[in-house]
């Protein structure tokens, strides 16, 4: 009898799972999800705050406030210096090139930005997506670039609701943006994969080496050029392909994102695009 009851519940759950999957394509499903998200988001935010307090208390004992502010200040300083350093190098390289290309790749001014808090990370293992607490009513639009610490690009806005928006991180397997290797000026595509970031279509003959910076390219579409995106960590030219196999490490720590900047209006000197694959 107990086995039959257990089997009944299993069949009921299986049927419901099938119904949910089939119903996810229905017209009202997106609306239902959006409303559900609005209800769930504040609850998750509360859970996050509680967890953060417990985590801080456990890690730092009685010096929570002091250490947290010191840590935040140091992180900010490091990020600012990294960004400044890269920008300086970038401006030296671009000084000999055409004025419009220099303006596009320089990124001295990324345009108007909007600060946003990270509400949650997508719990599905295959998705590197975060949800931020700004949405259409704050001027967030699909395709806008999102910056992490040190003004490094961390991803693009992939969908927007009224008060929330999803940001697809560069490491997401569905992410792909136009990129340029700073030292060689090689135009490539920076894509996400399950092993991290990769540079696609970089000719095997180009002298790209470990430690080279990867930045956004302004040659195509609507992304501002010259935004830091990653650092080349491994170059493999041993294959028979025309293109090198290049691994890139992101400059921002994606696991601990708390606040981000959305570029709501890029500076007029830059243009480019980032697309989902």
């Amino acid at each position, binding site marked *: 009898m107990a*086995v039959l009851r*257990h089997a009944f*519940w299993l069949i009921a759950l299986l049927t419901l799972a099938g119904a*949910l*999957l089939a119903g996810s394509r229905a017209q009202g499903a997106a609306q239902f999800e959006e409303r*559900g998200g609005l209800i769930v988001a504040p609850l998750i935010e509360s859970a996050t705050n509680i967890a953060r307090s417990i985590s801080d208390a456990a890690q730092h004992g009685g010096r929570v406030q002091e250490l947290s502010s010191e840590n935040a200040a140091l992180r900010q300083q490091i990020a600012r210096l990294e960004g400044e350093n890269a920008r300086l190098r970038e401006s030296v390289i671009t000084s000999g090139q055409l004025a419009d290309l220099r303006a596009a790749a320089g990124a001295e001014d990324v345009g108007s930005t909007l600060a946003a808090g990270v509400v*949650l990370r997508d719990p*599905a293992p*295959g998705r590197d997506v975060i949800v931020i607490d700004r949405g259409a009513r704050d001027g967030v639009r699909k395709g806008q670039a999102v910056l992490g610490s040190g003004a490094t690009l961390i991803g693009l806005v992939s969908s927007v609701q009224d008060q929330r928006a999803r940001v697809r991180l560069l490491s997401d397997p569905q992410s792909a943006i136009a990129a340029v290797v700073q030292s060689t000026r090689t135009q490539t595509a920076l894509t996400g994969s399950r092993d991290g970031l990769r540079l696609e279509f970089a000719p095997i003959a180009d002298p790209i080496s470990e430690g080279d910076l990867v930045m956004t390219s302004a040659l195509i579409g609507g992304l501002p050029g010259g935004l830091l995106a990653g650092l080349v960590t491994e170059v493999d030219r041993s294959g028979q392909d025309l293109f090198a196999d290049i691994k890139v490490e992101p400059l921002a720590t994606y*696991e601990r994102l708390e606040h981000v900047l959305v570029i709501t209006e890029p500076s007029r000197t830059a243009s480019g695009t980032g697309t989902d694959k």
Partner: protein
Amino acid sequence: MNVVTGIVLFRLAFACAATLLGVGAALLQLGSTPIWIEQPLAAPVLPLVVIAGWGAARGLGEAVAATVLAAIVLGVASEERAGWFLLAMLPTAVLLLPATALRRWERLLLAPVAAALGVVAFQGLMRFSSGLGALSADQQNQLFEGATWTAAAALVLAVVLAAGGWALRWRPAIDPEAPWRLFE
């Protein structure tokens, strides 16, 4: 109040508690585990703790609503469909099937086993739904860590439930005139 009504009400109360716990676990999964554990695969899957722990100690029936609502909470917060989350939680429930033929203490041992294997199946199905391939060596270690955490938590929950459920179990009053009581 007769025995049947008492038992039904008692089970209903426990099912409500399981549902609250399941939803709470899903919220905690979304809000807290990214802060405590950096690698998502190394984090315990808290809704599976509830399914395995509760299902083993008190039967799957009481944890059904918790399973469904936890999957929906995760689904609305994710780009992935809620149906996939529910489907990925099913193997844990299937692994509890032998519990019906086991003695009480044996059922408690089944909870961590179902939870650990359930985590592997959960992550496997979710990765399949996202089109991801096999795990790297690092990721396998992380998954092992996540499964261990989940199993430990499920065992604790099952033991607490078995002890609490036994102490709080409904018994009909000795005095037929007296209202029914939990403690007697």
